[in-house]
């Protein structure tokens, strides 16, 4: 373990009955970085987080927090946690929840500072149960950062937030990273990873599919998106050489390909009536879909 690694999974395997949730995952979180953990449902993101937090134990391999067993309280005093769902006591006020969580830490952030950072200043006297879903997520975020953690786990933090709240949370996350806090972020919103992450780890079916910067990931699958109106059969196009995927959506054909020029030429030949043609460089979403799709195809072939 080198001293810039704050959390680590080493050849970790976790099974639930016949299902292998994690199949030999290696993962290292470095001091001060924002690491995004991406993957479809069932890819093993929450299992990875659960192992790093000591909530579940690996069947093989190891999970470490600051070089210690994650169940050691000394290790957990240095982390902050926001889980995907947590029904906090509805009758307690926001300020009371915050003070309670602060009491767990040796050297917590100031009460007012935490409230300001999470955008809670006007909610402190409200009972938690009376808040909207987005406000509740902000409270959970405040509880995660109130202990002045060196490592923050955020499991789908912006689910249920409106755009404005999400932007504020992003700003707060950037401020924390600037302070030197490492963040492990799992998310479905790929633009979130694009906007925030220094490193992206893509999980699929319990394995690490790719690891690197956002640009690396996008380069790995240099896809282009084609959109048009046409009567051509999507299933037939999907079988063309060079086409990664093709589907019909709201009357539009949507095609992902690595060879846009070839495919566009063939499209225009096949359907002279084709209209509203758009060709666009793929974002992380397509790159990501392509990555996970490849693995599934490989496994089906095997």
């Amino acid at each position, binding site marked *: 373990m080198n001293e*810039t690694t704050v959390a680590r999974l080493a050849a970790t395997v976790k099974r639930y009955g016949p299902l292998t949730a994690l199949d030999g995952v290696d993962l290292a979180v470095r001091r001060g970085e924002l690491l995004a953990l991406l993957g479809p449902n069932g890819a093993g993101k929450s299992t990875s987080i659960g192992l790093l937090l000591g909530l579940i134990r690996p069947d093989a391999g190891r999970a470490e927090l600051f070089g210690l067993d994650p169940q050691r309280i000394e290790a957990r005093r240095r982390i902050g946690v926001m889980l995907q769902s947590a029904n906090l006591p509805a009758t*307690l006020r926001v300020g009371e929840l915050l003070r309670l969580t602060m009491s767990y830490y040796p050297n917590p952030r100031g009460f007012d500072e935490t409230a300001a950072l999470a955008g809670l200043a006007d909610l402190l006297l409200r009972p938690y149960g009376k808040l909207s879903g987005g406000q509740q997520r902000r409270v959970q975020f405040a509880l995660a950062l109130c202990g002045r953690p060196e490592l923050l786990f955020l499991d789908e933090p912006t689910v249920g937030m409106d755009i404005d709240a999400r932007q504020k949370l992003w700003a707060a996350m950037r401020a924390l990273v600037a302070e030197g806090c490492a963040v492990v972020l799992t998310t479905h919103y790929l633009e979130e990873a694009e906007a925030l992450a220094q490193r992206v780890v893509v999980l699929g079916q319990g394995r690490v599919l790719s690891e690197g910067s956002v640009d690396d990931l996008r380069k790995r699958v240099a896809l282009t998106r084609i959109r048009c109106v046409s009567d051509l059969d999507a299933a037939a196009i999907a079988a063309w050489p060079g086409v990664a995927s093709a589907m019909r959506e709201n009357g539009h054909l949507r095609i992902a390909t690595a060879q846009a020029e070839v495919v566009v030429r063939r499209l225009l030949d096949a359907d002279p009536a084709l209209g509203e043609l758009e060709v666009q460089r793929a974002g992380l979403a397509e790159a990501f879909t392509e990555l996970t799709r490849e693995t599934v195809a490989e496994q089906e072939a095997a």
Partner: protein
Amino acid sequence: MNAVAMTAASPASASAMPPRRVLGAYLAEARSECLRYLRAPGFMLPILLFPGLFYLVFGVLMGKSEGADAARYLLASYSIFGVMSPGLFGFGVSLAIEREGGLLTLKRALPMPPGAYLLGKMLMAMGAAAVVVLMLLAMALGLAHVVLTPAQFGALLATGVLGVLPFCALGMLVGTLFKGQGAPGMLQLLYLPMSFLSGLWFPLPMLPKFLQQLAPVWPSYHLDRIALAAVGITHDPVLPHLLVLAGFGAVFFMLAVRRLRRHG
């Protein structure tokens, strides 16, 4: 940069927690646990209402013809009936719901001192038990004209406040076995028959012989014997009953902790 490397290399110093702050965390947890239930009348009201109502009807109103001894007997039995419910439900239902809702998972991930969560719930249950016993004592002294020495008064209160603990352990065990809304039904299934079969509603001699012989199987029977001795109805030694209750409590607690560790 050097400073950063230093903190990483010496985790113990970075996360040392002074004993005062650890104690503070325990207190904060207990305070929150009490506050949240005091503010949830839907939770506290039934716990107080049923034993109060039972005692009013059977102990005060109908007990008039039977004399003060009946009211004294029922004071002890209904106190135990009332004390069982904050233990069973306060512990069991809230644990089952918090296991399902993810609060327990979050608390396990956070650096909450081990045991603070359970200790908080335990204090909450003891407080509720004290309120139930005091309410019945007030009705007994004020309405049913039961005469108690201060020692008897204190003994019954102490029986209630400490006697809730084995039922906390039983509630905790049920709370680890059932998730969410499955737990209350299961607890009712334990609570009501156990109360009846231990002679908390009708004196044991009024039950069939077979059920009388079965009564020592139930923890509530033993607590009732202690309560009856506390108010001066019986003069049996209480030590055997205390030991049985301690044994029940320890076994339930150990089973529950084991399940909680393994399954969360």
